[in-house]
């Protein structure tokens, strides 16, 4: 049987994670692209680091960091009365940590490709940093923003090592569709695994193809300044 519950949960997770990644990643990337501070390269490197650890191991460390033995976990437990790991919120936190490089690096590339004259023009027209970021920075960086969104969205769908470790594979709470597929494969239930994978692939494919088509139609490259 196809695990619809997990599919719904995953959709929710992907949506929440994407929003958080945009909110965190865009300003961070913008800052990294514009700052002249030398230390920025260190920040950039740190953001990419979660990638180099195997997901399960990263999940292990995240679990230690958020778990009830850690100051952070205890603080959270003290405030909310619940545990951060093994909850949907914990899953979101883990997802965000792990997907951040997928978002930030392409965003950064997008912002770097912006012609600085256009930012100067925007400032000269009285537009402040905030307004310029929204009206010039974001639209002109679209190829990078798109790439970042696609990668982090797809990755949130497929990620399972961290999700499993931090989420604990609890049906309806933290069992994502990729964990569910993994379980089916582990249980040799190849039919379910195949069908669920197919649903996941077809849905993702459709979402991606539609996104790419819209983008080609409406947001073609901007020459001519």
């Amino acid at each position, binding site marked *: 049987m196809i695990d619809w519950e997990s599919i719904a949960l995953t959709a929710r997770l992907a949506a929440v994670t994407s929003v958080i990644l945009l909110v965190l990643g865009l300003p961070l990337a913008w800052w990294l692209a514009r700052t002249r501070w030398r230390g920025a390269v260190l920040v950039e490197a740190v953001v990419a680091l979660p990638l180099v650890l195997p997901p399960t191991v990263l999940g292990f460390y995240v679990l230690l960091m958020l778990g009830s033995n850690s100051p952070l976990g205890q603080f959270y437990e003290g405030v909310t009365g619940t545990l951060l*790991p093994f909850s949907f919120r914990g899953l979101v936190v883990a997802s965000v940590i792990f997907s951040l490089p997928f978002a930030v690096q392409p965003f950064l590339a997008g912002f770097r490709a912006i012609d600085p004259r256009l930012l100067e023009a925007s400032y000269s027209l009285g537009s402040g940093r905030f307004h310029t970021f929204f009206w010039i920075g974001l639209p002109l960086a679209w190829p990078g923003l798109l790439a970042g969104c696609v990668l982090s969205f797809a990755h949130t769908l497929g990620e399972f090592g961290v999700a499993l470790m931090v989420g604990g594979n609890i049906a309806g709470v933290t069992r994502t569709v990729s964990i569910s597929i993994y379980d089916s494969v*582990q249980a040799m239930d190849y039919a379910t695994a195949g069908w669920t994978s197919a649903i996941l692939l077809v849905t993702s494919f459709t979402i991606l193809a539609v996104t790419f088509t819209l983008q080609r139609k409406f947001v073609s490259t901007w020459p001519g300044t």
Partner: protein
Amino acid sequence: NPKPQISSENPGTLTIAAASSLKFALDDLLELFRAENQNINVRVTYGSSGNFRTQIEQGAPFDLFLSADRVFPEMLIESGRGEKGSLFDYAVGRMVIWVRDVSPLDPEQSLVDSRVRKIAIANPKHSPYGQAAVAAFKSLGVYEQIKDRFVMGENIAQAAQFVETGAADIGVIALALATAPTMAERGRYWEIPLGHFPTMFQSGVILTNAQNPDAARALLGMMITDSGQELLRAHGFLMPQETQETP
């Protein structure tokens, strides 16, 4: 055995963390359990016993942990996460050498067969079945001869898949897995006699922060009823009382 009673005022949810190898047996068992305790909502998560231990140490909200070995439950009891005295061996694992149907190999002879290029086992570094397999190979006197042909899965399920996909020629897996429907359809096996490797007691423990320890106890109780043991046996396990411990 007397059947522990669960007060119907306190039904709630029973959350179980169970070793992957238990999947087929436990699914059937739970059907039985649900039929008898309709007011209990059972949720089970299968996975790696090692991961479960880590997660439980970090406060994972499980009531009952059915491990694939005895070490992890013992560690949990030591750290206070497992209820003292609730440790309990529910089965003993059996191990087979598995080949695909289409393979010309005879599983019993396959360890010394020169046509075998890759032997799939679970990683002996952390998997009880992997450790048992290595012990068995040593006991059978073939270890030195075949150790270069190992490919190691993170668990027996992955070892099974190595063989199943045709990537490896033979694999050492749990009998519990070999008797699972998909595997049974697609392959043949030879059981490695119990004496060749340390007895693999599989133990369960009730966790100290269990929300529903009564239900957990009820399930444990059911596992040692005749019908429970029958089911476990049918799915490739031995009962602890049927073996003597081999070092």
